[in-house]
């Protein structure tokens, strides 16, 4: 039996509200299935299970707000499921119908018997010392006390500690129901960005990249494509960053507990502006492995879902590096703030036509400014320069992206 936990959908998430169960006791689920929808400050997020098996018990009611790590449901692994006919809930007055055992066990395409993951149940820590005042404030503001460091007697969490955690500026507004709560999102952005600027020693580099080759290649490629399948210029730098991040691991990963953990995969967080003033940077999974066409269609899907407020949990917590692109209507350069616990953010400015020297002659070229905000605890300017230069170089040969 494995507990299905409220996942952390980003470093700044403390709790989530369960708004929809997509499964019920007795249902079979496979690893990766979306089983519930959780509302967070980022909007409603579909959360997936990592455990295949049969839903044994739903532990959290709809509309309940629970801290990250709270068991939401219990899942019986496939082996266990066969044994048990344990009643799921206190038997109702009418005799419970025998749970319908699916005639065919889940449609497993591959017989891949994934080894059941060791349950990732967080060890229940000894009850932390929290002063009554701190407890009340945390309750009022929805702060998960496990994310607060205590400074009081015997390390107790005090009122001031919770205040610090909330951040001086964050005034929590009345929570509005709905998929996207922009003021809550603003609070989350405030907390994450303030934390970043407080903790991460940023350094900044900029590099101007001639993308005339990209434009030519794109025009040629798109000529034969229907409008909805056309590649947009914005996809190319994302792919270039993904490839460069693969080769420069110091920019791809997480800084946690005073050390850098390079990530195995490259999941690009794509910064997506949301009308009305929100911002999210969900993951484009394995961006370095995707063809440009795949990357483009995934990006379209991601933008659409993000703006509709339906992002998957893994997409919120997975990004290993962020790319922020201001697009055509933007300015020439932007210097991003790293989204903790990531260690780098690449900024892409809009393309401008400039006089440029090529082979000793001046000619008009399309140029973008690519910037890097790097975490100096992890990398230095020299490595950052190589990383940026590599992105520039990759953009010179768009057909190889």
């Amino acid at each position, binding site marked *: 039996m494995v507990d299905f936990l409220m996942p952390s959908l980003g470093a700044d998430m403390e709790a989530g509200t369960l708004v929809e169960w997509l499964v019920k006791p007795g249902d079979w689920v496979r690893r990766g299935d979306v089983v519930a929808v959780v509302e967070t400050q980022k909007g409603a997020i579909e959360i997936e299970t990592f455990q295949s098996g049969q839903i044994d018990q739903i532990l959290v009611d709809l509309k309940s707000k629970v801290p990250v790590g709270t068991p939401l449901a219990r899942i019986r692994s496939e082996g266990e499921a066969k044994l048990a006919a344990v009643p799921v809930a206190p038997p109702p007055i009418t005799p419970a119908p025998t749970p319908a055992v699916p005639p065919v066990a889940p449609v497993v395409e591959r017989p891949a018997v994934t080894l059941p993951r060791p349950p990732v149940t967080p060890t229940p820590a000894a009850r932390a010392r929290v*002063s*009554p*005042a*701190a*407890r*009340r404030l945390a309750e009022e503001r929805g702060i998960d006390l496990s994310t607060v460091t205590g*400074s*009081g*007697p*015997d*390390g*107790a969490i*005090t*009122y*001031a500690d919770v205040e610090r955690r909330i951040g001086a500026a964050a005034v929590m507004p009345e929570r509005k129901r709905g998929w996207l709560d922009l003021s809550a999102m603003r609070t989350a952005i405030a907390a994450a960005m303030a934390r970043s600027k407080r903790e991460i020693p940023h350094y900044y580099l900029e590099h101007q990249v001639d993308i005339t080759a990209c434009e030519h290649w794109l025009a040629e490629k798109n000529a034969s494509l229907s409008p909805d399948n056309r590649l947009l210029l914005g996809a190319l730098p994302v792919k270039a960053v993904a490839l460069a991040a693969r080769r420069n691991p110091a920019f791809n990963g997480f800084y946690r507990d005073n050390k850098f953990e390079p990530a195995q995969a490259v999941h690009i967080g794509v910064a997506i502006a949301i009308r009305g003033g929100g911002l999210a940077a969900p993951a484009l999974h394995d961006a370095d492995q995707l063809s440009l066409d795949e990357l483009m269609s995934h990006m379209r899907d991601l933008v659409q879902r993000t703006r509709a407020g339906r992002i998957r949990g893994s997409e919120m917590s997975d990004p290993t590096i962020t790319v922020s692109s201001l697009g055509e209507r933007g300015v020439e350069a932007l210097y991003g703030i790293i989204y903790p616990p990531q260690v780098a953010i690449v900024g892409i400015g809009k393309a401008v036509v400039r006089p440029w020297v090529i082979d000793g002659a001046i000619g008009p070229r399309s140029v973008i400014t690519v910037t890097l905000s790097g975490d100096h605890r992890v990398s230095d300017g020299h490595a950052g320069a190589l990383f940026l230069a590599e992105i520039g170089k990759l953009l010179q040969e768009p057909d190889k992206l």
Partner: protein
Amino acid sequence: MTYREAVRQALRDAIKRDERVFLMGEDVGRYGGCYAVSHGLLAEFGPERIRDTPLSESGFTGAGIGSAMAGMRPIVELMTVNFSLLALDQILNTAATVRHMSGNQFGVPLVIRMATGAGRQLAAQHSHSLEGWYAHIPGIKVLAPGTLEDARGMLWTALQDPDPVLIFENVMLYNMTGKLAADAGPVDIDKAAIRRIGRDISLITYGGSLWKTLEAASALAAEGIEAEVIDLRSLRPLDDATITASVTKTRRAVIVDEGWRSGSLAAEVGMRIVEQAFWSLDAPIGRVCSEEVPIPYPRHLEIAAIPQSPKIVAAAKSALGRS
């Protein structure tokens, strides 16, 4: 002016203002008072108003109760709290209960003054601080003037009260000097006073410990801790509103009380904070009380046995998680 002179001024004023007022007690007349509080009053007002009594606390306290019931406004001086135990039956069983027992036909508008506290090397039998005990008793009021203004002003207000009022004067305060306004007069007897404003911790005290607590607050300020000092003034009734408001603001409290810790007034104040401000607390409530021993005679041991400002500083820092 000294605290002693402030009390004397209060006595003189009361005797002049109301012909029903008289002072009665051991050595208050010819000797001028055990602590010289009533020195000179016999000559000024005569033996009708300043009455020496035999060494019989129970007897003259009972006489005071009777004359109060009969319409007088006696001030009984019990010399010290140590001797008040001999009059405890009169205070607890008579003064505090007559209004109730008589179906409200009689009240006892009596004021009993006495000295209290340790610090004068008077040894275990003469160094008690039992005002917290008296504050346990319904039917009486218990006051602890800690300042010249209160020493001067509480007596008259107490005399206006229709029920018995006990005033505890800390022996260590009699020689304290300070300035008292020429027009100083009656003060209220039901509110605690904030003697120093702070935001980090509430230090709650009264009487002789007030000055040690203020000294501790100054020491804390030097370390960046802003302590608020509350002078309870009235031990019964307690001014819950002032205590709760302060602790709600500072979220921490240390109570300084020269009584013994177990069953002390400090315990009562602490419990009220828990009842009324639990959700505002940021740290366990601290107490600085007397050690649970008979108060020793040797000076260094006596000092060690009762609250002193270094202990108050340490308790406050502990509540703030600082060492």
